[in-house]
């Protein structure tokens, strides 16, 4: 089963971002919860080529309440 190692950044936020493993590939438009805050995924990029069962992604988010 693939594992998605995901780098998350939130431009314009004081949130330092996160690195987490996910069981499913994140997609733009989805919401993601970090601690107690919800974020909207704006963009997903492949950060590095896959290795073994691991995929390496970079996700840009913005706060969900600012999504409009």
């Amino acid at each position, binding site marked *: *089963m693939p*594992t998605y*190692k995901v*780098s998350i*950044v*939130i*431009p*314009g*936020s*004081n*949130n*330092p*971002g*996160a*690195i*987490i*493993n996910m069981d499913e590939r994140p997609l733009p438009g989805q919401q993601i919860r*970090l*601690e107690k805050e919800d974020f909207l995924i704006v963009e997903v990029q492949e*950060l*590095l080529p896959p*290795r*073994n*069962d*691991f995929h*390496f992604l*970079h996700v840009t988010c913005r706060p969900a309440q600012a999504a409009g």
Partner: protein
Amino acid sequence: MQDLETLKSVELFSGLEADELQKIAALLEERNYAPDEIIVKQGSPRDKLYIITEGLVEVSVEKPSGDGQHSVVKLGKGQTVGEMSLVDQGSRSATVRAISDPTKVLAVNQQVFSELCNQDARIGYIVMKNIAADLSFRLRQRHLSDWRE
């Protein structure tokens, strides 16, 4: 002993065979932390390597001014804490604090784990290669997050 499926989802052990994972599983102990509980403190001696299996932790460093902490990144499921000092033998480079309820980790004594890596060269080579890849990933994440402020 830990579920091998859990270990397979940890990049640190990616590429290891089932019998090799079993050797590592025998060394691991489960630990639970409450929110705000310190897992490791910056500057303290190295002792354990931690693998986050549930929840989030915050990695922070002391501001150069000595006035509080600067949050660097949050780490979640599958990420490791303490791998830098496994390589460079240095003291803790950052403070790591549990921020979710629950926060669950697997802990392994660094000296015991180093001995396994020395005794079994294939395990040692793969683990060290994975640590290098993880540090590279974190550096890339850091570069991409630098423009957030």
